[in-house]
């Protein structure tokens, strides 16, 4: 690993500054982010993130898999919101195929996605608060996160790497009792958010550590490609779910929280409000859940039901063909973007007409968001770097892929 050798990226510019290495095993860098800091006393002169420690070549691996086999890989990109990645990828392939997805599948996808958003925000809030020194919030957040993970386990058999969505629909009907469990959680959760807010929002220590810290202007955030709460915290009212709806989001009513200050506290408020909106959307999804099939009517793409496979010859043949040869996707290219908990998650899928994708590229929201780090931190104190890194909510798996 050449990474182990000191990368000559930053030389002290002046005699009075020094270079400080932070990470990749630093607990507050959320994984394996390495940051090089040029400091003058406690003040940051320059900051340079060094990434790639978690690069596993997922984009290359995708080119050697059938379209369906890519879904589990997408989980592993962003392990805090696997279902958002699943959704983005299957939407892209469905767009390539021209598939129509039945309403029930779309609503279930929205339901699962909003639960994922809450799950991801809970991990963010817990770890971010712990970085800054509020230990209790972490325990509370992970208590609720556990409930969500149990819901994921109910539908998909997996707590984290769910791979629940399929090209053309959803893998399985949710089990009996699932919706009751979700409703129970949705009823309980708003009080939990109040609890977190009681601990933080008006806590003087929290406010001092976050208000006016790591500020970024609207202009800079846009130019640097920031998206999601990082962009909305700086006053840009843009959310892909509302402004360029996908997967039936146009049927849902929700507010997009926006703050104008552009500091750590503004991003905190945006995300906490998003959790409240998400749980409201989960409730809407439960109330309005349509009846009907959960898979598209496309026998050459979607695996047949188990029952049919055992009774109908044709279904058995299709099953065998899809498993062994995959399905061919018409030539073309598609860029599909969804609003992940971190911002604009985009999949660019190129097909050459065969059963394997010619190219899969993931537009990582974190990678772009991380470019705002120097603007946020330069001229500030080292302790603020920790707050800034927490506030842009990075997941290194997604950055490095």
């Amino acid at each position: 690993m050449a990474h182990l050798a000191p990368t000559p990226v930053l030389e002290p510019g002046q005699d009075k500054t020094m270079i400080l290495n932070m990470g990749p095993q630093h607990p507050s860098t959320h994984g394996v982010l390495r940051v090089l800091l040029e400091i003058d006393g406690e003040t940051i002169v320059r900051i340079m993130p060094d990434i790639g420690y978690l690069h596993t070549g997922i984009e290359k691996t995708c080119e050697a898999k059938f379209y369906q086999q890519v879904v589990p890989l997408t989980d592993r990109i962003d392990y805090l919101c696997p279902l958002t990645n699943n959704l983005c990828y299957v939407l892209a392939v469905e767009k390539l195929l021209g598939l129509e997805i039945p309403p029930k599948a779309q609503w279930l996808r929205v339901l699962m996605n909003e639960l994922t958003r809450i799950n991801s925000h809970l991990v963010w809030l817990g770890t971010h608060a712990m970085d800054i020194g509020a230990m209790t919030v972490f325990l509370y957040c992970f208590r609720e996160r556990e409930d969500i993970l149990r819901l994921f386990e109910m539908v998909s058999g997996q707590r984290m790497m769910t791979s629940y969505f399929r090209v053309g629909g959803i893998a399985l009907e949710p089990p009996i009792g699932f919706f009751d469990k979700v409703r129970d959680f949705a009823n309980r959760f708003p009080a939990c958010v109040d609890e977190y807010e009681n601990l933080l929002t008006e806590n003087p220590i929290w406010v001092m550590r976050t208000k006016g810290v790591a500020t970024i202007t609207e202009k800079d955030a846009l130019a640097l490609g920031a998206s999601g709460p990082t962009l909305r915290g700086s006053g840009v009212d843009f959310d892909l779910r509302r402004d360029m709806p996908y997967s039936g989001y146009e049927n849902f009513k929700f507010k997009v929280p926006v703050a104008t200050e552009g500091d750590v506290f503004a991003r905190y408020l945006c995300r906490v409000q998003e959790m409240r909106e998400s749980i409201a959307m989960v409730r809407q999804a439960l109330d309005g859940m349509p009846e009907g099939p959960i898979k598209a009517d496309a026998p050459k793409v979607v695996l047949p039901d188990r029952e049919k496979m055992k009774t109908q010859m044709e279904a058995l043949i299709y099953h065998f063909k899809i498993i062994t040869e995959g399905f061919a996707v018409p030539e073309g290219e598609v860029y599909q973007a969804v609003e992940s908990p971190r911002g604009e998650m985009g999949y660019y899928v190129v097909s050459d007409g065969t059963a394997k994708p010619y190219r899969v590229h993931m537009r990582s929201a974190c990678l772009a968001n991380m470019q705002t780090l120097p603007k946020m931190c330069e001229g500030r104190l080292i302790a603020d770097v920790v707050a800034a890194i927490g506030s842009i909510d990075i997941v290194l798996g997604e950055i490095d892929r």
Partner: protein
Amino acid sequence: MPLAPPVTDLEQLKNHPAVARLLAWNSGAVEGVKFDRDEMTVYVDRSSLRGACILLRDDAGCPFNFLSDVTCVDRFPSEPRFEVVYHLLSIPKKERVRLKVRLNGDGPAVESVTSVWPAANYFEREVFDLFGVRFTGHPYLRRLLMPEDWEGHPLRKDYPVEGYR
């Protein structure tokens, strides 16, 4: 819904905001267009890419003020081998457009757009790292994901999936 065949006729697509703007500026810059699956692709001449980006960013009617993504597709062994792909988003108009530049296999290079959108910095470094496409005028063109001393560019099609052993 059955797929509509892609439209590649420039005459039919010249009213799209991005295409109209580019044609009015320099008709030689547009090498081709494609409208497929509700997505607009404009093939831009390599030498006018940066100019085209500035134009689209500053367009009063439909400002493409957000660079979503820069990536690359390797068409090995056909020539021109590389397609550098830019996904532009207009946040006020909620409109997307895809710009493409075709590059030859030997010494692929294109002008950097970091001066237009600073967001391109990491995206272009990633393309350089994984495809070996050079971006002239980039302030810091070094490997981003792979180790500094890595040989070869892994996402090229002539690079084996399991790597060289």
